[in-house]
């Protein structure tokens, strides 16, 4: 792939989206010759779908999901265990929350990907989801395939999709509480058992500085 023509292609698509959505388009990011990200306001989210499908040829619905930008309070779980064993205290400083490409202001973001077959390129669309009102208008009236993806996102992140015909749980049992893919939902499989990777080497008897040598 040569860089310049594809780059132009994505610039052109971006300009077309900007023209259609106006103020709805908040930010964008282009990785030349590779991919395009855009972020829109919540009000422009349904419009984005219909514009993409009907006017700009992004007819193929790839997926829709969400992302929780909160730095995990548990990390890998074992990291903290290791630190505790070796250093006796948790040395990890809490990392600040940063959003990925095309920016963002909120902890939760819904993102979706569409594909244009005529242009042979994809686009990742993002929208911010405020914490106090975690809801995003549905895409299922435009892209029928978004139906199941939104159900999954709803149960995994607790994001509401007003206008969705049947927003019931897809995977989880009906009585399940919590939203498993949020970062503050602990992964119990990693907590019920101690990490076996902690160094368990007994020092030489009567040799106190054995650990320093090793």
């Amino acid at each position, binding site marked *: 792939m040569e860089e310049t023509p594809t780059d132009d292609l994505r610039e052109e698509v971006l300009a077309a989206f900007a023209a259609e959505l106006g103020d709805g388009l908040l930010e964008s990011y282009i990785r030349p010759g*590779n*991919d395009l990200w855009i972020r829109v306001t919540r009000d422009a989210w349904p419009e984005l779908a219909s514009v993409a499908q009907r006017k700009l040829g992004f007819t*193929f*619905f*790839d997926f829709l999901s969400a992302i929780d930008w909160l730095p995990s309070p548990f990390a890998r779980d*074992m990291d903290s265990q290791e630190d505790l064993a070796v250093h006796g205290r948790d040395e990890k400083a809490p*990392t600040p929350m940063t959003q990925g490409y095309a920016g963002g202001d909120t902890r939760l973001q819904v993102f979706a990907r569409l594909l244009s077959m005529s242009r*042979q390129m994809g686009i990742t669309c993002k929208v911010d989801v405020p914490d106090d009102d975690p809801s995003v208008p549905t895409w299922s009236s435009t892209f029928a*395939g978004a139906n199941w993806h939104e159900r999954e996102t709803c149960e995994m992140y607790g994001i509401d999709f007003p206008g969705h015909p049947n927003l019931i749980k897809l995977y989880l049992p*009906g009585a399940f509480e919590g939203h498993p893919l949020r970062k503050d939902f602990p992964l119990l499989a990693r907590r019920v058992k101690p990490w076996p990777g902690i160094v368990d080497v007994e020092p030489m008897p009567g040799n106190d500085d054995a650990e320093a040598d090793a």
Partner: protein
Amino acid sequence: MTVTDSQKLAYVAAQAADARVNLEFETDDGMTLNMGPQHPATHGTLRIIAKLDGEQVVSCEPLPGYMHRGYEKLCEVRTYPQVTALVNRIDWLGSFANEVPFILAAEELMGIEAPPRAQHIRTILFELSRVANISLFLGDLGIQLGGLTIGFYAFRDREHVLNQIEAVTGGRFHPNFDRIGGLKDDLPKGWIAETHTAMQKLRDFCNQAEDLLIGNEIFQARTRGVGIIPPEVALSYGLSGPNLRGSGVEWDLRKHACPKGLAYDKVDWKVWTHPDGDSFSRCWIRLQETREATKIVDQLLDTIPAGPVMAKVPRIIKVPEGEAYVETENPLGAMGYYVVSKGDLVPFRVKIRSASFNNVSIVPWVTRGVLVPDVISILASLYFILGDIDR
């Protein structure tokens, strides 16, 4: 054996949850038929609830989730090399193909490209897993439609492919062979010649499948004109792979948007499409694709370049901050990984876009008004792997 109170409570809760689901689907007229989670037609634990009027389906709703393992969450606590061992289990019939898009996404973030020899072998194994997957589809198709014999042939001939995969990777089903920057190991001696023979056997199997099943008039009567999906609907549901090409859309990620790191541009092959969009066209396309895949493998085997199979990568893999989405044309359809990295040992977020999830979400739409036997043939022709739906 003693039963604790908590076990009793859990049982009661499960029963109540079940009863509620049943109630949701109970109709005041007609009959509700519950197929699955244990049902021969769902190969896996998919539950399908069909409201019937006689033998005609009024509405039909799949209920996945009986095999949901939460891979997206599990990936967040695993280092990049560990993830490949995990994602093998998504589409377990074409398991090597699951690793490839993830590795390609990580390579893209790290700015590494695998050496040409590794790209070639990667593509060969990718196609071998496609052959293994789809040849079993042809057998499964026969079993679903009542012709058991082809199923045994499929298992018999898939074995040739699995043996070849095993000889290289050491694993029949879960190769865990693809690495960031290349492959774990090189090919063993004599493997190329053996694979040529295996591909010939697979082509024979395809001929057998065509004679025994696809060309059979009963089979055609069962599948032609059944479960028609027009191209616009297929696109808006995100159908991919042979299901999309069966609706007449010429779109193959291997040809039209091949990600870096695979050697599809070095071979000459054809993308098959069928204009009908019915069950038969989907099955027929899969048969043709298996043949095409054996040809791709043959061509690639003859042109493997010499060289290393691993690029220079740091011993401890930390992927720089960024986001990347790579999707490849897997046996079941387009499979992609959206990897978000924070510059850590582990991915921050992995969204797994699996083909079967989208492919099955069309079931309620496509089964309105068909007969119960057609539900089976439509499900068989859409071809899903439960692990690929539930992840």
